[in-house]
C-alpha cells in the first residue's frame, strides 16, 4: 500500500481504546572500564581501539565482573525503590549477530539484581503518577554495525558492513516497567515524564551520562490498545530508535493512533519491532516478532553468582545522593519559590541543573540566570534538552566564580562556556587555549596605561585636578589597547593611582 491512509483523530482513539504502555530503558553506565574487562568505557574513539581478547570474544578469553557496575546497578535499584536480590546470576542470551562478538549476550534472565519497585513521576500540571518497575538487570552492550550501501541502512541489502567493537561490553542496565495502564489521554505525556524522571534520577546518582543523543540512554516503547472496558491487553508493538524525550511522547502518540486506525478498520496489529522516524514523527515496521525468538538462556558458567551482602546494600542506600524530587522540594523552600515558579523551572528542565550549580558553589541568582537565559538559548538553537548540553553544572559554577573574582568579564564568561560546549575541555582549559583570561597582570597593564596617559596629557591634568570621572577616556584607551581583555575596574584603579588621585 502506498496511499497515505486516513488516521483516526486522537479524541476518537481515546473514546474507543485504553492504551497500555511498557517502557524498556537501556542505560550505559559511566564506569571507568567495561562490564567484563579492563578496556576503557568511553564514547567514540577510533574504531576497534577500546578492545581486548575478552570484549572481542576471542577464543579462550573470560569475563570478570566490574564491581563498580554492580554497585551502580544496586544504587539504581535502590533509587527505583526495588528489592535487591540477595543472590543472583548472569545468564547467556544466545543469538547470532555480527556485532555481538561471542554470539551471546551476557545478561540476566530470571534472576535480576533489582526487582519490584516504582518511580513517582510528575506531570506538567503537577499531578504525580506512580510507574511500577518490574526489574532492573545488568548486561553488556553490543558493538556497532555500519551497513554500507543499500537503501535502508540496515543489514539486508547492504553492500558490506563495518564493525566497531569499542562499545561491545560496555555496562548496561535495562530497566523495565510494569504495564502502565489507566493513563488514557495522558499516556504519551506519562511516557515522557517517566523517561525524564528516570534520566534525572540517574544523573543525580552520577551513574550514567544519560545522553539520549549519544545513546547512553535508550528507550524502547511498547504500546498496545485495549477496547474501552476490556481488561485483556491487545497486541503490542515495540518502537525502537526513540532518541529524545520529545520523541518518546511522539512515538507513543503515533503508535496509539496508528493501532486504533488499524483496529477500527477490522485489521489487526502485528506484533513487531518498529523504528521511529525523527523527521516525520511516524514509525515504520521492522522485524516481525510473531514467533518469539528462542534465546536459549542458561546461567553463565564463566561467572560466579553475585551475592551482595545486606550490609553493603544498606551502606549504598545510606549514601544515595539527594534525589531530584527531594532536591526540588528543598530548593523550593530555600529559594522561596511558588509552586508555579518551581514547576516552570522544572518544566524547562532547569531545576536540577540550577540546583546542582548552586551545590557546586554558585549563588542562586547567577546560577538561575545562566541556565534560564544563555544556556536555554544554546539548548534551543541546538535542538537538545537543556540537561543534555555538554556542559556540567560544576563547569558553569566555575565560570560564575571566575567572573565574580574578576578573572573573566561576563562577555568572556559566555565565550568560555561556548568553548566548553564546543568540546574544548574544562573552563580553565578553554581560557588557556583561547587566551581569554582578563589581563590582570598589573605590569602588563601599567605599560598600556602609561602609554595612554602619555598620549593624553590634558586628561591627566584634569584627573590630577580632581576631575576623577575624566579617567573614563583613559580606561577606554587601555581597554582598546588590550582588546577588551583587561578588567576595567582594575584599570581605573591603576589610572587613579598613577595620577595620584586615589
Amino acid at each position, binding site marked *: 500500500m502506498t496511499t497515505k491512509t486516513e488516521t483516526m483523530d486522537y479524541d476518537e482513539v481515546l473514546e474507543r481504546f485504553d492504551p497500555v504502555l511498557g517502557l524498556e530503558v537501556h542505560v550505559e553506565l559511566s564506569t571507568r572500564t567495561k562490564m567484563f574487562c579492563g578496556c576503557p568505557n568511553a564514547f567514540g574513539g577510533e574504531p576497534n581501539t577500546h578492545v581486548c581478547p575478552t570484549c572481542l570474544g576471542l*577464543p579462550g*578469553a*573470560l569475563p570478570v565482573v566490574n564491581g563498580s557496575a554492580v554497585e551502580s546497578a544496586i544504587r539504581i535499584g535502590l533509587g527505583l525503590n526495588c528489592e535487591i536480590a540477595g543472590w543472583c546470576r548472569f545468564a*547467556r542470551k544466545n543469538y547470532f549477530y555480527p556485532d555481538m562478538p561471542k554470539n551471546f549476550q551476557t545478561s540476566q534472565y530470571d534472576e535480576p539484581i533489582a526487582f519490584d519497585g516504582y518511580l513517582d513521576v510528575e506531570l506538567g500540571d503537577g499531578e504525580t503518577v506512580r510507574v511500577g518497575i518490574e526489574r532492573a538487570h545488568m548486561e553488556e552492550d553490543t558493538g556497532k554495525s555500519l551497513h554500507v550501501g543499500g537503501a535502508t541502512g540496515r543489514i539486508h541489502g547492504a553492500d558490506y558492513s563495518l564493525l566497531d567493537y569499542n562499545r561491545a561490553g560496555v555496562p548496561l542496565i535495562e530497566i523495565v516497567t510494569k504495564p502502565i495502564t489507566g493513563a488514557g489521554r495522558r499516556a504519551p505525556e506519562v511516557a515522557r515524564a517517566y523517561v525524564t524522571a528516570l534520566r534525572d534520577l540517574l544523573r543525580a546518582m552520577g551513574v550514567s551520562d544519560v545522553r539520549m543523543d549519544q545513546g547512553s540512554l535508550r528507550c524502547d516503547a511498547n504500546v498496545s490498545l485495549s477496547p474501552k472496558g476490556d481488561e485483556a491487553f491487545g497486541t503490542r508493538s515495540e518502537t525502537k530508535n526513540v532518541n529524545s524525550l520529545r520523541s518518546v511522547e511522539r512515538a507513543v502518540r503515533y503508535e496509539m493512533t496508528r493501532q486504533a486506525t488499524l483496529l477500527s478498520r477490522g485489521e489487526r496489529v502485528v506484533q513487531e519491532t518498529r523504528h521511529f522516524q525523527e523527521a516525520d514523527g511516524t514509525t515504520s515496521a521492522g522485524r516481525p516478532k510473531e514467533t518469539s525468538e528462542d534465546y536459549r538462556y542458561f546461567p553463565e*558458567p564463566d561467572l*560466579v553468582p553475585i551475592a551482595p551482602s545486606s550490609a553493603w546494600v544498606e551502606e549504598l542506600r545510606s549514601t544515595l545522593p539527594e534525589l531530584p524530587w527531594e532536591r526540588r522540594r528543598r530548593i523550593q523552600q530555600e529559594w522561596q519559590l511558588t509552586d508555579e515558579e518551581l514547576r516552570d523551572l522544572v518544566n524547562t528542565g532547569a531545576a536540577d541543573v540550577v540546583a546542582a550549580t548552586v551545590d557546586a558553589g554558585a549563588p542562586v541568582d547567577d546560577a538561575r540566570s545562566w541556565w534560564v537565559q544563555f544556556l536555554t538559548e544554546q539548548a534551543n538553537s541546538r535542538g537538545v534538552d537543556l540537561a543534555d548540553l555538554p556542559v556540567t553544572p560544576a563547569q558553569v559554577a566555575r565560570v560564575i566564580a571566575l567572573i565574580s573574582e574578576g578573572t573573566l568579564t561576563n562577555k568572556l564568561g559566555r565565550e568560555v562556556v561556548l568553548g566548553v560546549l564546543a568540546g574544548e575541555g574544562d573552563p580553565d582549559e578553554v581560557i588557556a587555549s583561547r587566551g581569554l583570561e582578563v589581563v590582570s597582570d598589573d605590569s602588563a597593564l601599567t605599560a598600556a596605561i602609561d602609554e595612554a596617559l602619555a598620549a593624553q596629557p590634558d586628561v591627566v591634568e584634569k584627573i590630577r585636578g580632581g576631575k576623577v570621572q575624566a579617567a573614563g577616556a583613559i580606561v577606554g584607551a587601555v581597554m582598546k589597547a588590550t582588546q577588551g581583555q583587561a578588567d576595567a575596574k582594575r584599570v581605573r584603579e591603576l589610572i587613579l593611582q598613577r595620577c595620584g588621585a586615589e
Partner: protein
Amino acid sequence: MDPTTRTAAELAAGIHSGELSSVEVTRSHLERIAKVDSEINAFLHVETEGALATAEKVDADIAAGRRPASPLAGVPLGLKDVLTTKGIPTTCGSRTLEGWIPPYDATVTRKLREADVVVLGKTNMDEFAMGSSTENSAYGPTRNPWDTTRVPGGSSGGSAAALAAFQAPVTVGTDTGGSVRQPGALTGTVGVKPTYGGVSRYGLVAFSSSLDQAGPCARTVLDAALLHEVIGGHDPMDSTSLNAPVPPVVEAARRGASGDLRGLRVGVVTELGGEGYQPGVLRSFAAAVDTLRELGAEVAEVSCPNFEYALSAYYLIAPSECSSNLARFDAMRYGLRVADDGTNGADDVMSLSREAGFGAEVKRRIIIGTYALSAGYYDAYYGSAQKVRSLVTRDFDAAYDQVDVLVSPTAPTTAFRVGERVDDPMSMYRADLCTIPTNLAGTAAMSVPSGLSDEDGLPVGLQIMAPALADDRMYEVGAAYERARDAAAGGALADRIPEL
C-alpha cells in the same frame, strides 16, 4: 644416557646443576619429535626456535650463577593446542582455527613462560576437546606408542602419546569429562585433573566452561606434581578460579614415595566396575587395590548410586555449554571464512563457514546442546542434568565423609583400535564412564598406570579421586602406588614401551 628417557625431575636437576644443558636436552627432544612424529602425530605445531631460545636463556642463567626461574626451568614440554599461545598457532584440532595466531597467552602459557619451561610445540587433540580417541582431530588421529594401530585416548591424546613416545617428559592436557585421565590410562602415563578452579581457564578455548580444567601429564607422579605447581594457582582473569593456595602436591608426591599409606582410608566405588568392563582391566584394578592395602591403607567399598546417571547428565550439560561457547566461530573476526563471494549475506557466510569448519562430532554436540537448551525442553534436559549434577556431588560428599580417597579403574577398556568406535558415538562416550563424575562435582582425580592388562598387554589406569582442594592426597597415594608397582615389576613401566 638419552635425555628423552629421563624424567622431568632428573632433567631439571641436571640442567640446574650445570651437568646437562637445556639446549642439548631440548635438541634431543626436537630430534625425537622429528624422528617419530610422522608415525605418532602427537604434535600439530613444533616451535623449534622459541624452544631453543628459552633453553639458551636458561643455560645462560645457570652459567651466570642465577637461580632458575622455577623447578622446571629448562625442561621441555608439550602444550595441548587448546591453550592460546601468543604468536604461535592455536587450532584446537579444528579446521575452523587453521592458521589462527592468538594475540594473547593463556594464563597457563604465561606461567610456563615465566617459569622458563621450554615449550616444544602444540599437541594434537580431538576437535575442541570433543572426543575420547583423538580421532576427531581435523589434522589426523594420534597413534598410541604402545601399539600404533590403536588410539591414545582423548581428547588430550597428543599430550599423552608425546609422553609415551618420549617426545616430551611433561605435557599439559585439559580434562572436561576425562580427557586427561583416560588418555593417561590408555598410554600408561600419569594424567591429572586438578580441582575445578585450581588451574586458570583464561586462554583455555572453552568446550564446556563449568567442566573444563587443564592439568599436568607426565610419566611419573612427581613430574606431574612439579608441573601442577607451575601452572596452578589463583588467577584474577578467571572468575571461577579458586582463591586458595595450590595444594602442596610436590611435597605430597615426595612423601608418598616413602611408600607408607598406613591410616589412609581408600574407598572402592561400587558402581565403577563390573559388567561392561574389560576383564583384564578389572583384574589390574583389583591387583592395584591389593597393593594399596599392602601399603597400609584401609580399603572399603563405597556406593555412589547417582554415578549411574552421570554420563547422561554430562552429555546434556557439556553439549549445552558447547553450543553457546562455539557460537563465536562465525567467520567475522577470525578463523575460517568461506563463501564470501559478494553474493552471500552475513548469515549465509556465517552458516557456510561453520558448516565447512566444524567436524561431525562438534556439529553433533552443538545440535544436541541447542536442542537441550530450547524453550520447552530446558527443564527436561538441561534442568534435570543440573539436578543429577547436584546428586553426584552429594554422593561424593557422603563418600568423602567415610574415606580419604576414592579409587576405580580410569577407563572400562584398554586402548581400542583406530576406527573401531568412530561410527558408534555411544560406545565412544562410554570411555569416560568412570571419569565424568569428578568433572560434574568439580573435585580432583588422577590416573596412574596400574601395569598392563594380562589379556592384551596394553596399559591400564588406576583412578585416584580426592575432594576439592585435596589434590595433594591423591598425589601421595599415586606416588606410593607407583613406587610399589615398579618395585613389583622390577623396573619402570615406561621401560616396557616398544621401540618406535
